[in-house]
């Protein structure tokens, strides 16, 4: 393939918003997301000579962006030193004393296989993600949104797989409750 020309003048207008939105799915804080996009463009400028034209300009920029988002996660982890043990106890508030559901899971009447095309529901999920704690949000996003392996997440966060499964279970429960309140309960009344 011929080496493609890079037109840096167009970058911000063509990809700025796309990259910002992509980052906001992964990083809750808007200021931090802005900064990540900025840092990505700076890194891209300094690396234009490495652009071989094998991929599109867009996927090349997104490749750099993904690295910068991971760097951000590492930075946050280092500064705030996530406590990986405190809130990993199984959550009992969802069940009564006999182990039954307090709020009975509803039949969403969706085929899980086909649900992914549901734009409205996906947007609600994006909102519900912001309700998770930073730690749960990051781990859930890496595992389920970006498909990072269990081994790699455990290494990044210095946790055991059993911790990871507990965190994912709790994150999923919170997301399910959130979707039920903000999406399913509203649908019932329509």
């Amino acid at each position, binding site marked *: 393939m011929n080496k493609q020309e890079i037109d840096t003048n167009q970058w911000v207008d063509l990809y700025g918003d796309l990259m910002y939105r992509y980052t906001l799915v992964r990083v809750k804080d808007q200021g931090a997301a802005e900064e990540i996009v900025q840092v990505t463009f700076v890194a891209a400028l300094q690396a234009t000579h490495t652009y071989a034209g094998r991929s599109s300009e867009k996927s090349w920029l997104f490749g750099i962006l993904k690295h910068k988002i991971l760097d951000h996660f590492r930075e946050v982890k280092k500064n705030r030193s996530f406590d990986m043990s405190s809130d990993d106890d199984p959550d009992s508030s969802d069940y009564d004393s006999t182990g039954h559901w307090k709020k009975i899971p509803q039949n969403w009447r969706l085929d899980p296989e086909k*649900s992914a095309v549901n734009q409205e529901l996906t947007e609600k999920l994006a909102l519900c993600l912001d309700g998770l704690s930073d730690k749960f949000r990051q781990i859930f996003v890496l595992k389920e949104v970006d498909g990072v392996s269990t081994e790699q997440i455990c290494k990044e966060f210095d946790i055991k797989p059993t911790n990871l499964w507990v965190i994912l279970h709790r994150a999923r*429960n919170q997301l399910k409750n959130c979707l039920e309140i903000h999406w399913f309960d509203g649908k019932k009344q329509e």
Partner: protein
Amino acid sequence: MEKKKNSLCNLFKLSCQDTSPLISEMMDHRVSFVKRLKIKIHLAMCEVCLYYKEQLETIRNLSKNLGREDFPVNTNKTLPPESKEKIKKMIEANK
């Protein structure tokens, strides 16, 4: 004998609270045969936990979708104009 039978039954009998973490765990790795059997037995009797399982599968598929580079989410959000200007100036300066 009766007592023994009972305890054998209980070995496979799980509450919803016991089952829900296993349903979630099953999505993350291959769980042991005994755990799989326990989940299966519970799900055969408990419609509500079956809904729960479907909910988690739905969330998984939605999440995958959300991860796509071109998925149109947060479309109401744009990089603030001042941020765009700043980056454009930076790009200009670096030419």
